[in-house]
């Protein structure tokens, strides 16, 4: 009997349930795809040089994960509350028929069970489909071969999703059960008729809270936006929490002040339907402070995620051209007690390769190390801080030294303007990884002197030069010291780099050339019998770097796009559903306006303004949040370079305009349909 009742209820009130289902399905699919993807991110093969960026990315993901699950939990409880409210009359009928509250609770339990199983199934299916679709989209976006990126149904993610949502449904059941025991028949009977009480908040308190929360928000903005490198992970969490609370309080206080501000101009207030419009807006915001906060925060995540994703994608092409100025680089590194120093060309000669056959131009660069200049000795007490960010640096190893002559030769070969011109007692630090730049500058400003093979050198500049030596797909130079040619002891040569530009023949059949070098695989070079004492060899080409960079960028962009888009859709959907149900509740009011002779145009305009402000308000605050959130994201992602951020902002705005704006228009036109004169 109960089963039949619950089942028929669902079928009958499918329109109401559609709202609930929609929310649940979005939630489930978000959760599945997100979990499946973050698992897959670790699956990707990345080169050692990009390991650091993956770590940063993971940090971002784990932070966002917490936010996502919290938001989803609230969302589902909220949607179910909305549904309960809309069904008050039905519950009243059950109670007047003498049904016990316990029985009503059982009906709700049954319905939640149906809704839960149905939405889990649908959500998982959609989630699995969505993840395939997104991978195809991203692969297409980067023209990348995504063979290394296999999309399978992740059993673990499915299990996790089911478990997580089972808990959430449990919370919903408890919550609804609690709500039912508190229900009073008289309130339920009158639920449709009882007019909403307009509670005016204490204006002084509103202004006070507004000021306090604005100040708190400003403080967090400052800390996150301008003091990025002084932040630990727990600090970041704290500022996020402060930001969330401040957002809520701002909406709360604004909802209390808005009407008073609007009422202050009698002429504006009593023009056309303004009084009605303002009151509607005010009452909507008043009852929706909480959901507006959630929507605002979700939009904030959306904007940051989208902008980061776009800027990653934009800078990847730029980076590849800028940080990979030539085709080929090979490196040999000698062991500490090496006697014979074989060059890269020697090593390749051992494989029977004559480098001149493949390269039109080439240049070599020797690197040196001195036990006197290690990370520990150079950075001193900052070491512990650096260790937190870059845990894999060997702090007792020497910082790489380069001769200025070699550097200048390389720069000329690269076709770059940068030259190192040093007096005999000077040195320069080149570095382009933003977080290391800060530490280097700190030392250089202290005018730290270094001792190189008996020469005492002082810094030429008080900050490090933006530069690099190794080819790379992004900013990755953590600091190299350039010293005068005469300052190094040739016996302390630590290794050699070989840079080459393919000749026409090699470049013509690039695949064959690359395959040739891959086959030779100098990384397995064992020169011990030749007494070369080489500790390791490696080589990379522009093609290899491009592939790795695309792989890495694809993960980041994929995640950013995915979170951004789904959040955006969720925000739009929630606002739309809220507004539509509001319109259903307001049909009577619009009919009343028509009866007293309001123009259809004026009514439409009023509805437009109401819907517009409703959509605009959270967007405005989240845009403000995003300005500072992006400042933070830019510094975290600085390794990728975020030179053309404007372009990303424009792309993000376009996406938001399209999806969020689309939701707005759909909502407006549907609402107009709902409140339309039915004659």
């Amino acid at each position, binding site marked *: 009997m109960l089963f039949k009742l619950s089942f028929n209820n669902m079928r009958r009130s499918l329109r109401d349930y559609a709202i609930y289902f929609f929310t649940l399905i979005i939630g489930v699919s978000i959760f599945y795809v997100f979990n499946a993807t973050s698992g897959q991110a670790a699956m990707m093969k990345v080169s050692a040089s990009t390991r650091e960026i993956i770590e940063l990315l993971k940090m971002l993901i784990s932070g966002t994960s917490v936010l996502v699950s919290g938001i989803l939990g609230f969302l589902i409880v909220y949607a179910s509350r909305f549904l309960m409210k809309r069904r008050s009359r039905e519950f009243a009928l059950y109670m007047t028929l003498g049904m016990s509250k316990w029985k009503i609770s059982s009906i709700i339990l049954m319905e939640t069970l149906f809704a839960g199983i149905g939405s889990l199934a649908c959500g998982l299916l959609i989630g699995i489909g969505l993840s395939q679709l997104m991978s195809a989209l991203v692969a297409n976006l980067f023209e990348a071969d995504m063979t290394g990126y296999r999309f399978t149904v992740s059993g673990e993610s499915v299990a996790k999703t089911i478990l997580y949502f089972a808990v959430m449904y449990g919370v919903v059941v408890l919550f609804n059960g609690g709500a039912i025991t508190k229900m009073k028949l008289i309130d339920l009977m009158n639920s449709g008729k009882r007019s909403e009480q*307009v509670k005016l908040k204490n204006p002084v308190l509103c202004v006070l809270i507004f000021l306090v929360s604005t100040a708190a928000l400003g403080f967090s903005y400052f800390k996150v936006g301008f003091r990025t490198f002084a932040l630990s992970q727990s600090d970041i969490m704290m500022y996020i929490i402060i930001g969330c609370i401040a957002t809520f309080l701002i909406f709360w206080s604004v909802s209390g002040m808005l009407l008073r501000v609007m009422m202050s101009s009698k002429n504006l207030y009593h023009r056309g339907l303004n009084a*009605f419009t303002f009151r509607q807006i005010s009452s909507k915001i008043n009852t929706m402070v909480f959901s507006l906060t959630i929507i605002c925060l979700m939009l904030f995540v959306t904007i940051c995620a989208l902008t980061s994703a776009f800027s990653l994608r934009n800078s990847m092409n730029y980076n590849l051209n800028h940080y990979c100025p030539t085709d080929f680089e090979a490196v040999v590194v000698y062991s500490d007690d090496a006697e014979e120093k074989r060059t890269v060309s020697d090593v390749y000669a051992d494989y029977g390769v004559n480098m001149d056959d493949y390269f039109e131009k080439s240049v070599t660069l020797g690197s040196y190390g001195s036990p006197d200049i290690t990370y520990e000795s150079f950075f001193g007490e900052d070491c512990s801080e650096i260790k937190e960010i870059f845990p894999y640096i060997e702090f007792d190893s020497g910082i790489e030294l380069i001769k200025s002559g070699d550097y200048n030769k390389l720069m000329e070969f690269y076709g770059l303007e940068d030259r190192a011109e040093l007096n005999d007692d000077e040195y320069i630090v080149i570095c382009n990884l933003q977080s290391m730049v800060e530490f280097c500058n700190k030392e250089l400003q202290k005018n730290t002197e270094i001792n190189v093979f008996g020469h005492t050198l002082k810094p030429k500049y008080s900050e490090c030069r933006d530069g690099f030596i190794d080819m790379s797909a992004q900013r990755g130079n953590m600091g190299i010291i350039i010293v005068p040619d005469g300052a190094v002891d040739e016996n302390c040569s630590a290794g050699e780099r070989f840079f080459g530009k393919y000749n026409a023949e090699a470049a013509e059949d690039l695949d064959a050339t690359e395959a040739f070098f891959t086959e030779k695989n100098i990384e397995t070079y064992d020169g011990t019998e030749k007494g070369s004492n080489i500790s390791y060899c490696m080589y990379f080409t522009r093609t290899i770097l491009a592939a790795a960079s695309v792989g890495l960028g694809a993960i980041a962009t994929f995640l950013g796009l995915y979170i951004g888009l789904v959040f955006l859709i969720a925000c739009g959907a929630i606002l739309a559903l809220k507004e539509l149900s509001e319109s259903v509740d307001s049909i009577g009011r619009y009919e009343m306006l*028509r*009866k007293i002779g309001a123009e259809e145009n*004026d009514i439409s305009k009023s509805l437009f303004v109401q819907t517009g402000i409703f959509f605009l308000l959270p967007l405005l605050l989240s845009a403000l949040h995003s300005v500072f959130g992006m400042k933070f994201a830019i510094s975290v992602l600085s390794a990728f370079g975020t030179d053309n951020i404007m372009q990303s902002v424009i792309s993000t705005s376009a996406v938001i305009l399209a999806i969020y704006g689309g939701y707005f228009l759909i909502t407006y036109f549907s609402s107009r349909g709902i409140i339309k004169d039915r004659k």
Partner: protein
Amino acid sequence: MELLKIDHIEKYYGSKSVLTKAIDDISLTVNEGEFVAIMGASGSGKTTLLNCISTIDRVTSGHIFLENTDITTIKGKELNRFRREKLGFIFQDFNLLDTLTAYENIALALSIQKKPAAEIDKAIKKVADQLGITEVLQKYPYQMSGGQKQRVASARAIVTDPKLILADEPTGALDSKSAKLLLERFRYLNTECGATIMMVTHDSFTASYAGRVIFIKDGKIFNEINRGSDSRKQFFDKIIDVVTLLGGDMSDAL
């Protein structure tokens, strides 16, 4: 002077097979400054008649003239303009906007007509005084009694200075004391301010405040009585006589 002229109107509901004649050939005229009550049992067609006059509903055939304008032919924007400039409405369930204060509810009727804010304030003060609602102007509908709400609704109806005030069961949701108070105000508006009121009711007591009562039965005019120089009590007795004549249908309305 003739204000409203209803000329052989009919209103049918339903399809050909199940046809309901809500109004079956009614003609009547209302002069300026009159207070007319329309009486009838539930389903007699009295509310349909009012809806047709108020342009909320359309007639199937016939014509309705207000100040020589045929309102059955106006459409769309013109209709809205006509409604807000010539007519004032008072509904059984008040139809006040619950989100607005009494003052704002009344002001809305004026601001829809694009009246300047200064004028609005003056007009509201005057009408509030006439209806005795000055002290509830800043209250919300949920803070007011039924009688107060109906007087606010009446204030909204007359503040625009309409040619004709249409009231649909204005006392239907009121207790007898509030009803009496409201009707006294109606009479005041009618005699002192010269308002033309057309009121639909099934309550003989309410109808007895009018100057003329038209009885409707099954969509047709059944009877019509004028108050003349009778006292309200005498007129009430006359109404009761007609109601008795109308039959058992209306006995519940005593």
